[in-house]
């Protein structure tokens, strides 16, 4: 049995906001695949959990007339893998969702939980970053939308306040149209493992030159990061093996990996170089580069 103190079931979004406001210790449980495991493994006691499973609108994935894609926080990884809007416009995010944990886990674990709990190894966080997503945070006291770049504050620490719910992830047309991308999860096993490095790269070409390159890394620092040095360097460069190799080397300068039992700092730095080169090569091919 899980050791928590209270359980609230929110039937509607308004009710969820109210519960959070009236119960300052309440926190959200989405798919549960992180928090329930933590309660058991780390012997955390006394939590007050609020389930949001019954709120249908939080599971919606839609696209509006301006081409902005909206992904509800309770969309599961399985939904990301199979949703037509995602596979058509932002397939890299669908593929990233398809490598999380194992098949049974992907049917319950959600993108909202993956982003909101701030895990640096979150497989979808890098794609969300690369597409310059906006995160909608709602509470009984009002709503706000923030850029993903301002969202991560530290290891396992994000800008979601106790009374807020991350309801939607928005991706604008200008941030996906014309881009091709590739996500590489580097881990010891193909399934049921956590990444040693996650690398999401999208690029846009003008002829055979990079007009925009975005490289997002997971487990390369305390929070998911973007490789500004490498991205700026890449702009305007011809798509060649040499240039791609050099861009990968620059990405290492942006990373701040650490030693852990999973992998050493030196190993991770090598992974940053190789994975960004491989992902960029694939992304450039998909974009029609030679």
């Amino acid at each position, binding site marked *: 049995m899980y050791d928590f*103190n209270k*359980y609230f079931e929110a039937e509607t979004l308004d009710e969820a906001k109210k519960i959070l406001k009236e119960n300052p210790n309440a926190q959200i449980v989405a798919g*549960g695949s992180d928090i329930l*495991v933590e309660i*058991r*493994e780390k012997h955390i006691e006394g939590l007050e959990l609020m389930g949001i499973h019954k709120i249908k609108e939080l599971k919606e994935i839609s696209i509006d007339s301006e081409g902005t894609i909206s992904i509800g926080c309770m969309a599961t990884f399985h939904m990301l893998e199979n949703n037509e809007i995602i596979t058509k416009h932002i397939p890299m995010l669908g593929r990233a969702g398809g490598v999380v944990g*194992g098949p049974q*886990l992907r*049917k319950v674990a959600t993108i909202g939980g993956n982003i909101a709990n701030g895990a640096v190894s979150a497989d979808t966080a890098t794609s969300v970053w690369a597409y310059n997503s906006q995160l909608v945070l709602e509470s009984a006291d009002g709503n706000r939308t923030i850029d993903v770049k301002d969202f991560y504050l530290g290891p396992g620490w994000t800008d979601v306040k106790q009374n807020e719910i991350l309801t939607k992830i928005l991706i604008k047309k200008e941030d996906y149209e014309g881009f091709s991308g590739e996500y590489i999860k580097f881990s010891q096993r193909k399934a*049921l493992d956590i990444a040693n490095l996650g690398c999401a790269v999208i690029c846009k070409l003008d002829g055979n030159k990079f007009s925009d390159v975005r490289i997002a890394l997971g487990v390369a620092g305390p929070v998911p990061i973007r490789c500004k040095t490498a991205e700026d360097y890449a702009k305007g460069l011809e798509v060649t093996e040499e240039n791609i190799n050099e861009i990968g080397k620059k990405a290492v300068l942006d990373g701040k990996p650490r030693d852990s039992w999973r992998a050493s700092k030196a190993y991770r730095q090598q992974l940053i170089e190789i994975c960004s080169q491989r992902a960029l090569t694939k992304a450039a091919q998909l974009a029609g580069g030679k």
Partner: protein
Amino acid sequence: MSDVLKKITFTLNGKERTVEVDVRKSLLDVLRDDLELTGSKKGCEVGECGACAVMINGESIDSCIYLAVWVDGKEVRTIEGIEKDGKLSEMQQAFVDEGAIQCGFCTAGLVVSATALEERGEKMSKDEMKKELSGHLCRCTGYHNIASAVDKVINK
């Protein structure tokens, strides 16, 4: 803890059930301890081994990291609901025929996931099938005979 019990109604192996569950219990604990369906096994309890897999609305999930209260209004099928009229289902028989069972601890979960795949009604390559079954750990068989059993039924 107050409000520890919650009444939920769901379909379990084809029959509607209304039960009071402790909100802190996983679906696996409710199935095994309260409803005495011990076919689903408790392995890792962190969603890695797949021994506890059951179907919810036709999709296989790990019941150890799924709160029982979440099945309210849903349809649950466990290994006990896979047989047909007291006889082994085609998938269960294939596991027997192909020697896909040794100690048996992973079998219930694997049969549930394999049955969910079968019921999708799509043929698939061995690689796709292996990816779909990659949420299960088996320490005995080396997976080969399991893959043969599932392939035999899905791609017949």
